[in-house]
């Protein structure tokens, strides 16, 4: 029993210590970090790193870019995936199943596999260095898993509900907005959180398609920071905290949904 509690404590510390160190380091100077990486800062916390990052202007821009890209990618992926899932569920024949197969095929292909041709396609279409470009590739990259999760859910909805609304004279669109969507809210919100985490944290696509500072998102900006400040950990960690803040705050309040969302993505992925 004691051993169990001890193990739980050790694991908790393994998660907590790095996070506390990140917080502490961000309010220390580089010299203090060198002298005593684990210690408290001398003479109180210093918020100079935060001020420096925001004075360097671009942080607000990166933040805005990440917000725009994430919001549009998540909402559009959800909408399109829900439509496809609805279509597959309604048709329930070989065409529907075939389309399901085509869409979910995408889950088998990691982004790194298509990055080379995708890069030249984006160049040809003039979609590099654009938020629109990022949003479009984001949608197509997470559409497969979103379709997979949502189809799985919609297939469990009682067919009678759809049939009843047909009798009431509802067309497909009405059935989608008035029956399928409201009933699918639990799985839609789980998928939304999964997508939110994926897109907010994504590095690969911005790395490939964005070189202009004006269009960089937070993870890419952080990576550039690393080049700029190499081992200036106080500065790097300040960036980490700013970039992670929205996700962490959301997690604290919506924990249950986060866990449901990300594990749904994992199990069905």
């Amino acid at each position, binding site marked *: 029993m004691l051993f169990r509690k001890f193990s739980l404590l050790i694991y908790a510390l393994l*998660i907590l210590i790095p996070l506390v160190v990140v917080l502490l380091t961000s309010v220390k100077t580089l010299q203090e970090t060198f002298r005593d*990486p684990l210690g408290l800062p001398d003479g109180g916390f210093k918020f100079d790193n935060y001020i420096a990052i925001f004075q360097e202007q671009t942080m607000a821009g990166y933040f805005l870019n990440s917000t725009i890209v994430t919001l549009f990618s998540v909402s559009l992926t959800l909408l399109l995936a829900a439509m496809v899932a609805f279509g597959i569920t309604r048709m329930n024949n070989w065409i529907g199943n075939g389309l399901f197969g085509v869409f979910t095929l995408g889950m088998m292909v990691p982004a790194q596999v298509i990055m*080379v041709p995708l890069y030249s396609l984006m160049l040809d279409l003039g979609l590099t260095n654009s938020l629109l470009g990022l949003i479009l590739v984001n949608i197509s990259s997470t559409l497969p898993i979103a379709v997979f999760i949502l189809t799985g859910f919609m297939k469990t909805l009682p067919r009678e509900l759809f049939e009843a609304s047909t009798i009431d004279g509802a067309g497909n669109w009405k059935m989608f907005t008035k029956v399928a969507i409201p009933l699918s809210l639990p799985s839609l919100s789980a998928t939304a959180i999964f997508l939110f985490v994926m897109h907010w944290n994504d590095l690969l696509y911005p790395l490939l398609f964005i070189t202009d500072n004006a269009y960089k998102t937070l993870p890419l900006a952080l990576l550039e920071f690393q080049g700029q400040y190499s081992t200036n950990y106080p500065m790097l960690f300040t960036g980490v905290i700013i970039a992670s803040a929205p996700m962490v705050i959301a997690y604290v309040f919506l924990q249950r949904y986060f866990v449901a969302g990300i594990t749904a993505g994992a199990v069905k992925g």
Partner: protein
Amino acid sequence: MKISKSIYWFFLPGLVLYSLFFLYPTFSALFYSFTDWDGLSEAFQFVGIDNYTRAFTGDSIFQKTIGNNLKFMLTVVVFQTLVALAFALIVIKNTKTNVFLRALYFFPTILSSVSVAFIWAFIYDPSMGILNQVLQLVGLDFLAQNWLGNANIAIYSLAITQIWFHAGQMLIIFVAGLQAIPEELYEVAKIEGASKWQAFRSVTWPLLAPSATIVVAYTTIQSFKAFDLVFAMTGGGPNNSTEIIATYIYDVAFKSYQFGYASSISVIFMVIIALITYLQFKALRSDRVSY
């Protein structure tokens, strides 16, 4: 029941985007894998299976990346699964403390890989890193070293980071699987005088098999595809000791502009991943569990 033709419109926007940004590049990768395209010029030549022959016989770095991928994957799969299972068994009951601990263990999953990379670069830092500091504190100085700079252990240092990052996610899947096992079975086992270990072996283990399959399959794919951590922490070094297939494709394509060759490696990578995913699907279908 007849379904009106308007249903086809529901597929259109998704299908257009998906075909353009996913299907088309996938088939292009296949196409370019038989060429010597440099990614910049218009012209290229067909070289047949030369790229593939080169990957398997003439490219020692590529062969090394496969080995590195396997080392990374096996370490992560074995230890992450064990950690997740062991701790899931301890925090299975829904007490307040356990719910809090599960939330805490899950926490790293929501961080970006770049953030995790920085945190662990600091932990491993040879001069001011926490790991060496802690080792000194407890009198294990002789173990202190350059964790990411030593070609023999760098890949394992990365594997530990990956486990820290995702073990909590797998733990939750195990908890869900364990909680689905009916309590009565344990009571029966108890009445029949089974020891704790016997109960685990004859009740928990067989009924946990579906979740274990999911965890192992998912971890396998996730660790095989890992890119960000390696890219941000070591960039494949030192001396290619942490170069994995995904980072190698990036290097070949965007540092040495061999798009044709990079495409061939992509195709090989795709085949490996597809095989693993197929096995996962099969396992999922046969078990029919859902959460």
